[in-house]
């Protein structure tokens, strides 16, 4: 499950830029397939990020976030080598996490 989140964390000046790309269908529950059947909702509801194990970001998502969600956020006070982890949880109970170290830009 580790390869469905791609991440990069780069220290730029005093800000660490964290870029995250997740693989997820983000189905709204309103789309229909070719047989005119409603495709059940399947989407990420919660994304959390930690820096060295300490919570820095908590995001709640609805169905309006695009498929294969992309996210950038900024951290202040992180150093090269610090660990940034991102975890998502979806409405079907699945989850995935990934952790990387901060690198110099």
């Amino acid at each position, binding site marked *: 499950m580790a390869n469905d989140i791609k991440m990069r964390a780069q220290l730029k000046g005093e*800000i660490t830029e964290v870029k995250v790309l997740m693989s997820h269908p983000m189905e*709204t529950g*309103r*789309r229909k397939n070719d047989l005119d059947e409603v495709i059940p909702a399947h989407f990420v*509801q*919660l994304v*959390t*990020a930690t*820096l060295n194990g*300490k*919570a*820095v*970001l*908590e*995001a*709640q*998502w*609805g*169905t*309006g*976030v*695009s*498929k294969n*969600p*992309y*996210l*950038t*956020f*900024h*951290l*202040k*006070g*992180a150093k090269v080598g610090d660990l940034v982890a991102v*975890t998502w*949880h979806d*409405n079907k*109970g699945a989850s995935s996490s990934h952790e990387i170290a901060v690198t110099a830009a």
Partner: protein
Amino acid sequence: MQRRHFLQGLVGATAALLWLPLNAIAAIWNKAAFESTTLEGAEQGMAISKEKPSKDIIIVAPDKAENGAVVQIEITSNIPNTEALAIFVEKNPTALISNYMFSNGAQPFVVTRIKMAETSDVKVVAKVGSEYFTASRRVEVLENGCG
């Protein structure tokens, strides 16, 4: 009255504590706000009130989006002590897109890609203590992105 406020505070504190374990997703996720079909309902679900327009919330978004399925937006709050940023698209089937809560050095800044059903205002609400500030930006959508 004071006792009531105390009890409300207690409920809030308990909710904040329950917030921490990340297993009970259903309990954390703001179902009422996310499933509301109106902007007003979604804001009520988030307990947003008396929001004030602010020029210190910056929304970077395309004026025209070719494909409403993927509209990249960048939001920044320059208001000190911004705790959370919520994104709404007024004319989507459900107006609340996402809510970001920042702590421990995370800056009130996000780049995200959202779905837009039709031309609409993208509205951002910043939570600063018990106050709310807002800014909007219109995005013209050429192709429906909600399927």
